[in-house]
């Protein structure tokens, strides 16, 4: 259900942004570090450092609504909207994925033209352990790349 190109971008290395909201529709932003797409191409797991996960889970357990924005350093961007499924602590395999994710994220930032003095601390500075794996089911996919067509529903 998630189109091929969107899947590629999501697997990364992309900058990942989680959007949730509380019962009063007050929104919250949380950066995620790494994502895994399950075989059904609809279920997605993202990783959030434990100190930052608490508020996300508070919103998600209350209402389940989640948005995941992700963009390449080149500004190509997409957004998934869906519903919360489950969460669990990180395991070793997740941590290995996050290590790899951070390294490729830096390479892509450099490639997109970020100076090294910014690319390195920006990407390698994301804390990732201890962390929580948050799984949700995507219901809609949107194009978010700035310019004409931004906001188009892709599937």
């Amino acid at each position, binding site marked *: 259900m998630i189109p091929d190109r969107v899947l590629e971008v999501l697997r990364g290395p992309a900058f990942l942004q989680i959007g949730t909201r509380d019962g009063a529709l007050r*929104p919250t932003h949380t950066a995620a570090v790494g994502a895994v797409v399950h075989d059904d191409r609809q279920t997605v797991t993202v990783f959030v450092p434990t100190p930052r996960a608490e508020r996300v889970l508070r919103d998600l357990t209350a209402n389940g609504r989640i948005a995941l924005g992700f963009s390449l350093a080149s500004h190509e961007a997409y957004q998934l909207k869906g519903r919360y499924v489950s969460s669990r602590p990180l395991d070793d395999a997740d941590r290995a994925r996050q290590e790899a994710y951070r390294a490729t994220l830096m390479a892509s930032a450099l490639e997109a033209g970020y100076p090294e003095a910014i690319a390195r601390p920006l990407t*390698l500075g994301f804390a990732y352990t201890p962390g929580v794996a948050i799984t949700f089911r995507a219901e809609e996919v949107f194009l978010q790349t700035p310019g004409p067509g931004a906001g188009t529903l892709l599937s």
Partner: protein
Amino acid sequence: MGILPDEIKPAMQGVIPSHVVTCARDGTPNASAISQVYYVDPDHVALSHQFFNKTKRNIEENPRAAVWVINPETFETWDLELEFVRSETKGPVFDVMEMQIEAIASMVGMKGIFKLRAADIFRVTAVTKTVGERLPLAEIPGLR
């Protein structure tokens, strides 16, 4: 004395993109990257409005926004809670933003094509330096 500390100013120069989360009236959140959050005064920031998008529509329905900015010198990140105040199409804040956008647009052959439509002014209701999101600079490999 406003709510925004001076040390947040470098995070509002657009060196590294920021992010904004809004929420539609039906409760659907929206997460989007923005190129710059503009510092207006110690209690206000502005977002540039160039294209009509989901963020803009959500703000019209529900005036709250969460914004994440990063300081490109210390790499500390901040969470801001915002409340929409008004949309300006003239005045000093609009002028400053518009001049910058026009200067850059003229450099990439987009003068007159890529223009600021409005400066959306928000009141900052809460600001916090994030805890547990960033590693101390000393722990980042390869930094001097």
